[in-house]
């Protein structure tokens, strides 16, 4: 069998995943608690920032982006930037009508 190995496969220890899980659950509960307190527009911002932090954990550790070929992280950043740009431009349009 012929294989193309671009880099050595990185083995992530089980413990790392459990720590990340603990962090993700803690962030979820923080988000639930904070949004129960009514803070107006700030609630939206806090909820989305926490969701962003959770996503970066999932992308970097669970989806191995931290240890993978850099091409993947760059492409993901590119897609997220594109998505954010479209969201911002659409909202700017609606907010200024």
């Amino acid at each position, binding site marked *: 069998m012929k294989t193309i190995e671009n880099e050595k496969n990185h083995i992530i220890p089980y413990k790392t995943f459990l720590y990340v*899980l603990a962090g993700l659950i803690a962030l979820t509960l923080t988000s639930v608690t904070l949004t129960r307190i009514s803070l107006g527009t700030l609630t939206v911002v806090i909820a989305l920032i926490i969701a962003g932090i959770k996503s970066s954990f*999932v992308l970097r550790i*669970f989806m191995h982006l931290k240890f993978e070929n850099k091409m993947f992280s760059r492409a993901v950043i590119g897609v997220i930037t594109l998505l954010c740009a479209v969201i911002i431009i659409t909202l700017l349009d609606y907010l200024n009508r």
Partner: protein
Amino acid sequence: MTHRDDLASKTGMWLFLFTEMLLFGGLFIVYSVYRYRNPIAFHQAAQELSVFIGTINTIILLISSTTIAMSITAIQKKNKKLALSLLGITIILGLAFLVNKYFEWGEHFKEHIYPGSAVLALRGHGDILFYGLYFFMTGLHALHIIIGLVFIMVITFSIKKDKIDHENYVLLENSGLYWHLVDLIWIFLFPLFYLIT
């Protein structure tokens, strides 16, 4: 003798995930704009959703993401038995998510709230939009859960038959990537529909 290119395989998977991100991204834009135009209706309708079930389902998905990620470590360490058990747990958790969704949607249906219902039509434009987006987006997400579960089941059988092992596990990695994406989407769906009221 077969030729194999794991990097190309993963690249293909990521390209597919990008199309999924843009699909849900588009729906998030639709949601934001309608929320902006119907703030009061969205505020009141969002309060009718159960934060408790939403939180439980979030935690279920987070744990299932962890177990599938750990199964890759297990296969790398040649621990086939542990990999199979971890995938089994992932499948059970995925099914538990769907069971919760079934009861959650069932509650809405009991109150005659579903797209096209006469009761919902009486409640006005904003409510129709909120529930339309709610059922469509959580429904599309649930469809992804079902596809992910089938994918993981196929992978589990392949590991059982030693078609996937410590030397050749890119398919397991790809099924993991898909499952994590489903988790990522839920990470945003949960605050947008359940938490921000």
